[in-house]
């Protein structure tokens, strides 16, 4: 809310520096989002127009004589047309400094003009919020007063943020009270005694009927002898400085009281309220209302209305209706100062898509005690305007004091780590309006003030004490953390994967979890922020491929993040890892893809590092992947994920010219690191034989390796297929695999004869199992 400092100063003495006040508010829990620095204005005084005459030499100019409490009235020429003898106006005297100009003596068409009568615009007020031409002051303003001082024009305006628990502080008085407590200064309250003592005639009694549990208290008060017109200048200026457009004296009084006290009010034209009876009830199906913003609204039972015996007159806590609106004809009004269930107001506001200054307060659940206070303050202001105030009517629950809260000084120290004497604690709380009684044991009994609904437990009071004491005063201490048994394994694994992949040359990316497309198993957001982000991703692949497409040059990337899908009515969430690269196909035969092998090598290195085991990649299929270049990543027959070349049709569809090679793993399926057992190597030398085996193309390299191990058992210390050839020399449907078999004994040196005999056994087995022949 916008808070002119000059308005605050009316209730509490404050330092001169705006920044100091803003800082103090921030340190009380009310951060200042912005400071509007008002221009400096001097030399403007109030004046009374003694006479207005035509300018002798110019048809469009007038010459006024203006009394400004000096020996001689000033002679001022003006082009304004809204001036007349008897008016009180603001005069910029010779030497005055205005935001746009400095006033000097000058002659206008032969008349020496000793100053200038000024408009709101020249005082840096929004000109379309005030009358055209010269700004009119109130008849009671004595000539010769400093207008800047009179209206608090020389002020900065703070844009103060108030948290949702403090609707009481969404008011000038509320913030003044906070500052007074913090500075240890006194609080000067405005008149809060309701002057309404007139009794309504028995046949004209105002009555209130609360027919909804969501209205807790309702104060209604009648005022007669009302003349609708502009509000006093001081009030209009003050409202304008606070960002509230002046409308007329009645609307302005209700806005003024809301800004000042935090209690929203509403005025009804008393003549338009049937039987002077106000009913608070839920709207009936099919009921309609035209609200003050001119919109006709259909109401349902969720709406809470204030009605008379005929129709809804307004939406409770939200906005009044047009039928009972105050107009220029209004002579008598009914004031409403009420308290409603906050959530009910918020629901209605959300359902109707309508918010107002009033609802922004009501929806945070105001204190019922504010109703009487708001009515009293409005009555005092209306009394000043000459209205006749009747005795207020009150309906709803009687006001009761809050339950006292027990607070021990040790409690404060326990939570804050700062020892504050009980007497000082009591002082802080009293400064905020609490009633504090100390019992013999040193326990304080604290009764929160009626306007604070947020103080219900001791911890709430501890915060109040800390705020007034100052959070800065609490010493910073590094705790010694007691032992516990909570594991960091999941986070450690993610970081280990990330570190290893970075070491393998992959760049980590973070992409959007919410995507434009999905399928039947996708999790859909009910209230998406845009169509681009309607579905939760069920794979990291699209994000990676878009990254490759955007990177222009071949890119290597990985992402670790949550993926989602729907299973029955449940949302299944998984931590996924995706890594891979884009690669332009090299000059290779169709049966070889070195890019795949590079990715596989990285996958093996990665999983070896975090699990202590080398994964097995078995042929497989997965939607979105190339049918002939896809493997399933497994460890101990547990599936960890997919590795392969992405379907080139899909990569093309995402504007990626190159192929994409991806490994997609379920991080939760990765087994923990298996501590290996060391085996000392043989002291005896090893020997190896290289074979070129010709087999059918359907025979997998890994099958050959396994078969060799099977046949040789412990004699074989290594077997690896290291080359593949296909072509005319081996014939159609056949391929030649180069295999290196390493043999070694632990008890003696292996002889050539022994090795040759072992290889012969291998060849027999290869022939038998795979129909292998030795390549010539």
């Amino acid at each position, binding site marked *: 809310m916008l808070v002119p400092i000059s308005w605050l100063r009316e209730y509490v003495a404050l330092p001169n520096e705006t920044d100091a006040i803003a800082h103090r508010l921030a340190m009380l829990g009310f951060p200042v989002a912005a400071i509007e620095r008002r221009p400096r204005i001097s030399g403007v005084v109030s004046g009374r127009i003694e006479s207005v005459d035509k300018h002798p030499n110019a048809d469009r100019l007038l010459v006024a004589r203006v009394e400004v409490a000096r020996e001689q009235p000033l002679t001022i020429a003006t082009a304004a047309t809204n001036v007349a003898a008897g008016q009180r106006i603001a005069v910029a005297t010779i030497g005055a400094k205005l935001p746009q100009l400095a006033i000097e003596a000058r002659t206008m068409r032969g008349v020496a003009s000793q100053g200038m009568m000024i408009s709101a615009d020249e005082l840096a007020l929004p000109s379309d919020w005030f009358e055209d031409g010269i700004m009119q002051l109130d008849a009671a303003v004595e000539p010769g007063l400093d207008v800047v001082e009179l209206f608090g024009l020389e002020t900065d305006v703070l844009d103060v943020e108030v948290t949702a628990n403090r609707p009481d502080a969404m008011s000038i008085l509320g913030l003044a009270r906070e500052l007074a407590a913090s500075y240890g200064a006194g609080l000067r309250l405005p008149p809060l005694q309701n002057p309404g003592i007139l009794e309504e005639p028995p046949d004209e009694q105002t009555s209130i009927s609360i027919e909804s549990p969501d209205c807790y208290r309702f104060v209604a008060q009648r005022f007669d002898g009302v003349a609708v017109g502009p509000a006093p200048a001081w009030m209009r200026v003050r409202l304008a400085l606070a960002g509230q457009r002046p409308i007329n004296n009645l609307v302005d009084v209700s806005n003024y009281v809301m800004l000042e006290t935090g209690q929203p009010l509403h005025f009804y034209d008393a003549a338009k309220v049937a039987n002077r009876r106000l009913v608070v009830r839920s709207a009936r199906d099919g009921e309609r209302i035209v609200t003050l913003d001119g919109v006709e609204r259909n109401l349902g039972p969720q709406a809470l209305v204030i009605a008379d015996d005929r129709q809804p007159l307004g939406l409770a806590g939200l906005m009044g209706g047009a039928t009972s609106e105050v107009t220029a004809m209004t002579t008598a009004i009914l004031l409403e100062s009420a308290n409603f269930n906050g959530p009910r107001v918020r629901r209605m506001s959300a359902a109707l898509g309508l918010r107002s200054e009033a609802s922004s307060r009501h929806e945070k659940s105001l204190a019922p005690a504010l109703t009487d206070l708001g009515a009293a303050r409005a009555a005092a202001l209306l009394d000043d305007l000459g209205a006749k105030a009747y005795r207020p009517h009150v309906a709803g629950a009687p006001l009761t004091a809050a339950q006292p809260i027990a607070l021990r000084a040790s409690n404060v120290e326990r939570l804050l780590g700062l020892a504050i004497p009980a007497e000082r604690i009591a002082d802080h709380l009293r400064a905020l309006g609490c009633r504090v009684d100390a019992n013999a044991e040193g326990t304080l009994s604290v009764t929160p003030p009626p306007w604070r609904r947020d103080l219900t437990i001791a911890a709430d009071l501890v915060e109040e004490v800390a705020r007034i004491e100052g959070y800065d005063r609490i010493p910073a201490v*590094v705790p010694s953390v007691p032992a516990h048994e*909570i594991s*960091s394994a999941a*986070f450690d694994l993610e970081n280990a994967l990330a570190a290893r992949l970075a070491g393998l040359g992959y760049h980590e990316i973070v992409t959007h979890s919410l995507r434009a497309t999905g399928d039947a198993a996708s999790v859909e957001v*009910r209230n998406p922020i845009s169509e681009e982000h309607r579905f939760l991703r069920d794979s990291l692949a699209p994000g990676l491929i878009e990254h490759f497409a955007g990177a222009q040059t071949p890119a290597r990337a990985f992402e670790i993040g949550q993926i989602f899908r729907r299973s029955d009515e449940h949302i299944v969430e998984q931590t996924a890892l995706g890594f891979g690269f884009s690669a332009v196909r090299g000059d290779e035969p169709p049966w070889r893809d070195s890019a795949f092998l590079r990715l596989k090598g990285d996958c093996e290195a990665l999983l070896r590092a975090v699990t202590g085991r080398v994964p097995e990649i078995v042929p497989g299929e997965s939607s979105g992947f190339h049918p002939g270049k896809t493997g399933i990543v497994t460890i101990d027959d547990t599936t960890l994920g997919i590795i392969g070349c992405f379907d080139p049709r899909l990569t093309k569809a995402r504007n990626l010219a190159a192929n994409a090679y991806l490994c997609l793993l379920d991080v939760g399926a990765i087994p923990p690191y298996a501590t290996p057992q060391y085996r000392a190597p043989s002291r005896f030398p090893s020997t190896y034989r290289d074979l070129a085996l010709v087999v059918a193309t359907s025979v997998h390299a890994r099958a050959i390796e396994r078969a060799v191990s099977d046949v040789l058992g412990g004699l074989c210390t290594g077997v690896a297929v290291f080359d593949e050839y296909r072509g005319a020399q081996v014939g159609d449907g056949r391929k030649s695999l180069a295999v290196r078999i390493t043999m070694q004994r632990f008890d003696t040196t292996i002889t050539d004869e022994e090795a040759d005999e072992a290889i012969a056994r291998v060849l027999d087995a290869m022939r038998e199992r795979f129909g292998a022949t030795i390549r010539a």
Partner: protein
Amino acid sequence: MTDLAEELRRLHERFNAAAESAGDEEALEEARVAYLGRNGEVTVLRRTIGTLSPQERPGAGKAINDAVSTMEARLAELRARFETRAFDEELAASIDVTFPGTPSGMGSIHPVRRILADACTFFTRHGFAVVVGPEAEPDYYNFDALNIPSEHPAREGFDSFWLTETMLLRPHTSPMQIRTMQRHKPPVAIVAPGKCFRRDAVDARHLFQFHQVEGLLVAEDIHFGHLKGMLTGLCRELFGPNQSVRFRPSYFPFTEPSAEVDTTCPKCAGRTASCNMCGGSGWIELGGSGMVHPSVLREVGYDPERYSGWAFGFGVERLGLARYEVDDIRRFVSSEPDFLRQLS
């Protein structure tokens, strides 16, 4: 005797000629083998000693040994010369060390992970564990258990993405407080990093998908001063040893007392009125914190009379803006190669 001496002299001469003419170490080795090897000329000659008279044998043996020593010394000398020459040649080489290096294909960690890891390392050093949890959470963990019942005005501050009637994408990492405390008896000391979602309009300062790091310490005798101590330490870890931290009162339903945490603007340290990082205030906002609300402790079965604790939650990308002086928060989800390269 004379024959052998004469033979040895001539042989020595031939050896000298062969050694001298050897152009490299390999040729020299050939010469060695030819004269001193298993079937070399000197070895062959030595075998003739047996044919001499016993009186002649010692003299002949000595003569041959002397000749062998001389030859070996000569070979060593020549070998050393070759080695020196080889080193001289190698050392004569010179390259342009300013020529661009060949990249070794190093990858990188995303700056968000780096910040999270650095923050978590600070806490693990002090005995905290790091826990992670789901992003789709029931409203119970997001709100109800955190003392934000439905209809609570504070729910408005969490404009959330809803997935079902009760499930939503977590708007903060605070559900991990509840999950952890329900699973473990006190004491608990955790940090919980993770991705969060709020329906915020995206601009240079806002993302609808962002990361938070949550912290929670609940034990006996834990107070607000401990919160200040740890968060001051964290900021110094992330931004440098001169960092100040400021705590301002605020409101969160799940903490009481509550505080907003600010730290000195790492860019201008409050010295530049026009600083685009802090808007000239000299402070940047890190997030919320406070003492865990007694209702939250009771909800998870902890006795608030016995245990107390604090919690905090910071926006990680916001930390990143300040730490790396990034101009636009959207870069953290853009994965621009240049952004990743610069911050790797």
